[in-house]
């Protein structure tokens, strides 16, 4: 993009504008999705509890409710407790929010040879995991600097929880990485092109369980109920954000909803086909192999974008559903879930998937379907940077399956 712009304006400005466009799009995505998710959470929780949820603000469904909340929050006084470490107290919400946004830099929204991604990183999965782990910093800083017991308790719980849940989560992420043979999220996503039978969640029984464990750990690592011990209202007033008010408080919430979305999109890319829908619409319409830059290509990419966002929203809805269904766990139960269940299960699933891949390479859908029988072909574009590593697997992945193959 910078190269394209530099034909019209000064190159130094072109780089700046190109960077700004990416960052602007990501910030807008996170902020607007937070608006929508907060509204959605209210509506869904209302329905689950046999209420209507917001109905008044902005028309029929109360869809301006979050905006009204935002205006209220901006007007609130920016409080800072007396005994607080003022500098850390002020900066903590921004640390959380930055970590949450930075994860989106390496998340692809459409694949192919020219993926829609802010920064195509060679080790995208690893980067996203590393950055998402940093969000807890803001929470710990907030808890420490508030000079309040409740905040400190909340922060320490969160720290223990997030540090332990990173272990099983990392193990779960390794499974699709191993099957696709790459840390590059674009390659992992394009490995699952075609019908939904090619999604890695259906690759073998082990990946199915891995996806479930990943989602549990993801929910715990973004601090959602039933794992929201850091802010357990019934015990800790409001946990780490007890002392916050106004806009700083809302930054924590934007960060939380942003990370929920990031975890869901990561799940979508790793396990649920990413930008490939359950039915290969783009291939059926003949848009898939289109030349980059053409209208057909743009349309195919836009369908991919819609797929990714839709899967992300479904993931977030699932999290909301779980939150309003299950009661909160105790801290020892949270740690037991992680150390006694999630970690061993993830390790066993990793071993199982390794053996499956070793014994039955090049098959999808629980091994019943060979990948190679295909009519549709993926666009030639995506580079197999790891061809020498897993040449056979890559080559079979270049072909996608048809209805005959499924039978």
């Amino acid at each position, binding site marked *: 993009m910078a190269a394209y712009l*530099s034909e019209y304006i*000064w*190159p*130094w400005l072109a*780089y*700046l504008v190109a960077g700004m466009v990416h960052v602007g799009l990501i910030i807008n995505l996170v902020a607007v999705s937070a608006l929508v998710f907060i509204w959605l959470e209210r509506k869904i929780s209302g329905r689950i509890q046999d209420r209507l949820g917001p109905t008044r603000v902005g028309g029929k469904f109360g869809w301006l409710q979050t905006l009204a909340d935002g205006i209220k929050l901006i007007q609130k006084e920016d409080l800072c407790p007396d005994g607080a*470490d003022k*500098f*850390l107290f002020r900066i903590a919400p921004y640390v959380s929010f930055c970590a949450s946004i930075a994860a989106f830099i390496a998340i692809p929204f459409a694949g192919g040879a020219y993926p829609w991604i802010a920064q195509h*990183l*060679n*080790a*995208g999965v*690893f*980067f996203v*995991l*590393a*950055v998402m*782990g*940093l969000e*807890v*910093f803001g929470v*710990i*800083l907030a*808890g*420490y*600097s508030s000079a309040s017991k409740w905040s*400190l308790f909340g*922060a*320490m719980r969160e*720290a*223990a929880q997030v*540090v332990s849940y*990173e272990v099983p989560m990392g193990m779960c992420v390794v499974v699709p990485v191993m099957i696709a043979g790459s*840390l*590059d999220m674009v390659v992992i996503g394009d490995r699952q092109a075609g019908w939904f039978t090619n999604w890695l969640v259906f690759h073998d029984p082990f990946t199915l369980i891995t996806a479930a464990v990943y989602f549990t750990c993801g929910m715990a690592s973004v601090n959602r109920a039933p794992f929201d011990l850091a802010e357990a209202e019934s015990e800790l007033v409001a946990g780490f954000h007890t002392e916050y008010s106004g806009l700083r408080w809302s930054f924590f919430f934007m960060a939380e909803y942003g990370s929920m979305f990031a975890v869901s999109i990561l799940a979508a890319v790793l396990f649920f086909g990413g930008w490939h829908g359950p039915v290969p619409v783009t291939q059926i319409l003949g848009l898939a192999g289109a030349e980059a830059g053409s209208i057909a290509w743009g349309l195919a990419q836009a369908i991919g974008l819609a797929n990714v966002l839709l899967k992300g929203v479904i993931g977030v809805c699932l999290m909301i559903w779980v939150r309003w269904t299950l009661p909160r766990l105790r801290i020892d139960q949270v740690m037991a879930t992680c150390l006694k269940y999630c970690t061993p299960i993830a390790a066993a699933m990793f071993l199982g998937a390794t053996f499956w891949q070793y014994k039955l390479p090049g098959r999808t859908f629980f091994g019943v379907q060979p990948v190679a029988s295909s009519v549709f072909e993926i666009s030639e574009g995506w580079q197999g*940077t*790891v061809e*020498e*590593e897993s040449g056979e697997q890559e080559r079979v992945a270049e072909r996608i399956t048809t209805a005959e193959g499924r039978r």
Partner: protein
Amino acid sequence: MDSIYWPSFFFLLFSGIACVFALGVLLSKNIVRMAFYLVISLASTAGLFFLAGADFVGAMQLMIYVGGTLVLLIFGVMLTSQERFVEMRTSSGEWVVAFFIGMMLLFTLGKAAFGVDAWAGLDRETAEAVEVEKTVTPLAMGLLGARVDQLDEADEVKRDGMAGYLFHFEIVSVHLLVVLIGAAYLARAKRKTGGTAANDE
């Protein structure tokens, strides 16, 4: 040719942030603030790695160093519940020792850095023409046992000798595992009363 060369700009920005906050670590007296400054310093070092196209090393820096500092921060918070530790004071003896060790390290690093023959970097046209290579594949291949950068080594014996790091990697990871289990064993609370047979040591 444009007037601002962004890689240089970002190099100066990141290295400046890293240096300023490293000084902040040195001069701050509050242990939690120190940890926070350390995090910023290490994170901007990760930024330098990303700038150099070393995605994997950069992400590694974020995960290991910044994440490790997180644990440090937690311990800082846990230990500073006693007033004695909130404001750290260093005695003059500690200053002298630290100064000597720091100067020795600086001397070694400086000597190594200026010992490089072609110290002058590439000029700008050459630098702009360099295609930044992706780092993960050679790294992973190296761990698997094939050094892609050594494939055209003429000497057969030499090539086999540089086959990769798999063995070393395994040794180190087993070692770390032993350390982890040992730490868990040592840290375990020993319950003498009221426990079942499973709890008793």
